[in-house]
């Protein structure tokens, strides 16, 4: 019976979905609990004695506006810069023929395979020498050397028939014009989804900012979290959850608003080898 079969799938999918969404509900619920309730009834999704005390405390202890602004700027700058440079480079790799093209592409793409720990120490020294430590520029800069954008956008560009570009060349259009007015609109889903991925990754970046940022006013949101986590003094779980919720709320809300667009963008961007 087909209907039953479909129902079975829905049960399975629903279960999987629950597993992936419950932690979020769990975080939100516990952020409104008092610590003792969280310890003793971690389970309930509706706090017995709801309190916004955790949030008030976080707001009083952190310049949250500043921190959110920092996070935004880091993510936005990284996203814009990476998307623009990736599109430019990808265009050159697809539509130009020049000596060393394949070697250069190979080298750039190979960097995807370099673990961040390889470049961590020297980059730390570089950023310090440039005077960008404890500065969000120091957080942004090393992120920019990311070849995934070049890869993804190049793959998308390869699906555009060459004849389109040739037609534009006959019209005497310059390459930047072709890139901006023909190529990018055609591969918009791939570019936008790459940008969204950049934004999300940058927003949540943790390891590197921990090394670079020192002052609360320069923090990004994921760093704010570890202000409330201490092995020795214990982690105030409910406060940590409040900060977690604050950290995820903006990407979450943005996602919920634009989910239709984001999902269709991602699915139609299709990484075509």
């Amino acid at each position, binding site marked *: 019976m087909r209907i039953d079969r479909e129902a079975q799938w829905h049960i399975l999918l629903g279960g999987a979905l629950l597993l992936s969404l419950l932690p979020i509900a769990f975080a939100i619920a516990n952020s409104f609990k008092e610590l003792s309730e969280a310890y003793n009834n971690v389970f309930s999704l509706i706090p017995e004695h709801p309190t916004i005390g955790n949030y008030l405390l976080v707001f009083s202890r952190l310049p949250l506006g500043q921190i959110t602004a920092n996070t935004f700027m880091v993510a936005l700058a990284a996203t814009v810069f990476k998307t623009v440079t990736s599109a430019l480079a990808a265009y*050159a790799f697809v539509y130009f023929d020049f000596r060393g093209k394949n070697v250069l592409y190979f080298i750039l793409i190979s960097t995807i395979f370099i673990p961040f720990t390889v470049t961590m120490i020297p980059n730390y020294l570089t950023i310090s020498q440039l005077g960008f430590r404890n500065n969000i520029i120091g957080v942004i800069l090393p992120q920019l050397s990311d070849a995934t954008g070049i890869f993804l956008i190049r793959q998308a560009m390869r699906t555009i028939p060459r004849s389109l570009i040739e037609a534009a060349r006959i019209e005497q259009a310059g390459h930047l014009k072709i890139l901006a007015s023909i190529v990018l609109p055609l591969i918009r889903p791939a570019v936008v989804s790459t940008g969204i991925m950049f934004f999300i990754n940058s927003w949540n970046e943790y*390891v590197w900012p921990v090394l670079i940022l020192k002052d609360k006013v320069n923090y990004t949101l994921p760093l704010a979290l570890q202000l409330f986590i201490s092995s020795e003094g214990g982690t105030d779980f409910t406060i940590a959850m409040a900060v977690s919720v604050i950290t995820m709320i903006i*990407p979450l809300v943005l*996602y919920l608003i634009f989910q239709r667009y984001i999902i269709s963008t991602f699915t139609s961007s299709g990484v075509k080898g």
Partner: protein
Amino acid sequence: MSGNALLAYGFILPSLLVFAVFMFYPLLYTVYLSFFEWNMIKPVKAFVGWGNYIALLQDPLTYVVLKNTFAYIVILLLLNCAAPYILAFILSFVIRRGRDFYKSAFFLPSVISLVVGSILYLWILNPISGPVAIIAKFFGITIPVWSKTQGLVIGVLSIITTWKVFGYNFIVLFGGITGVPQEVIEAAKIDNVPLHRIFLDIVLPMSSATGVYIFIMTIVQGLQYVFTPIKVVTQGGPDNASSNAIYNVYQEGFTLYHTGYASAFAIVTMVLFVVLLLAEFKYVEKGIYYEN
């Protein structure tokens, strides 16, 4: 050099500049450091030649870490490549209702920070008093102390990573799979081809370009993603059972301050990854079905 070539380099230049400063230079510097014994602050770096590499090869810990790395790769491939692949297939061709809802919902956790996820899961999976343990207890099951159990700890840390990575991989794979025309699947259904054969014989090969991308990304980025839960949850323990190649470099470099040794280890890790890259070029660029 022709004008066109110059122009091409002009297009690549912005990327190249950043890469030169924050990728190639540090890479070379790390190679350089790998031949020294140094702790980042000693005024003199002691040249040891291949010493770090030899020490690395002789250290039994290296093999533990590599074995763990391999275990992570296998588990991550199952959870973050195979599983989302199958899910994307089910959503594309098996079920008829609720597709859009599932797509949105499964993607949702991937916008959230992995640090947040790690802390959440540390509580949720607390084997004594977390919700999972409470439910298990209700059914008379005792959850093993995973954070201190060899083998299990890798699985659980991978699951935490999966929570974050799954959505992105899933949606990209979904995009790849939707490139397979509905009629092709219907043709197979009419021929009474079982679902698993449709997946293996038709969908997998026809979406392999996307599949290989996710496959490679799962290995390369998955191992780096796992770093966060390792650092937040276990610090590589128990007895290095959850450490992987990436974490071990961090541990050696930033906890024990064996900068030279850590550099050597990082280089070895990178070489392993590059071997994977060569495989990628061999398979992605050839023998893969392209739509065009």
